[in-house]
């Protein structure tokens, strides 16, 4: 079955730095890879989607890369702020409806 690993359970960085989160997957390649933000006790919030034939996607301070050879996606938040503190979820989508989520990385940005 598909396995998704996000690099670390928690990541602490200083405000203003770039946070880099990693998502690795095994077995089949997804048609799409999505990143969501989840705050405690809340539902996931969609951030970015990248297709298998795309290398990079940007949205404001967010950037996602997708390397199907390495079976890896990197998620970057530049000029990080304390308000960026949350859990970030990677999710695979084969284009069949269901999302397969990773366990998430809890990001803490301190002043």
């Amino acid at each position, binding site marked *: 079955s598909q396995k998704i690993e996000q690099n670390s359970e928690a990541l602490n960085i200083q405000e203003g730095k770039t946070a880099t989160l990693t998502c690795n997957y095994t077995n089949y390649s997804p048609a799409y890879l*999505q990143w969501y933000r989840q705050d405690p006790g809340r*539902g996931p919030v*969609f951030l970015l989607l990248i297709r298998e034939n795309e290398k990079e996607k940007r949205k404001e301070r967010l950037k996602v890369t997708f390397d199907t050879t390495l079976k890896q996606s990197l998620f970057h938040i530049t000029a990080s702020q304390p308000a960026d503190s949350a859990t970030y979820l990677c999710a695979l989508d084969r284009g069949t409806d*269901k*999302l397969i*989520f990773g366990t998430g990385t809890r990001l803490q940005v301190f002043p």
Partner: protein
Amino acid sequence: EPEVTQTPSHQVTQMGQEVILRCVPISNHLYFYWYRQILGQKVEFLVSFYNNEISEKSEIFDDQFSVERPDGSNFTLKIRSTKLEDSAMYFCASTGTRDSYEQYFGPGTRLTVT
């Protein structure tokens, strides 16, 4: 901005009881989903629903679970006979069209089975 809503926010029930979790997806969306998240664990897919029928379901979604879209706005998840291990946060999600893959999640219903 349109959003997915869910009721109740918290449901406490006794083992063996039936529960119905309710969701109102975004009004023009066509694809609907239920996910669950056991405390401290990852979000897990349960079922997807399109055109008034289930399009895919996971191993978790056994005969104790059912979904329904009883009218043009509500989307429900029923658990017939709850078990302790059903305690989790249940999220409803929706997607607009087949070409838009991002899913919009509701705030969740925390189900506690005692």
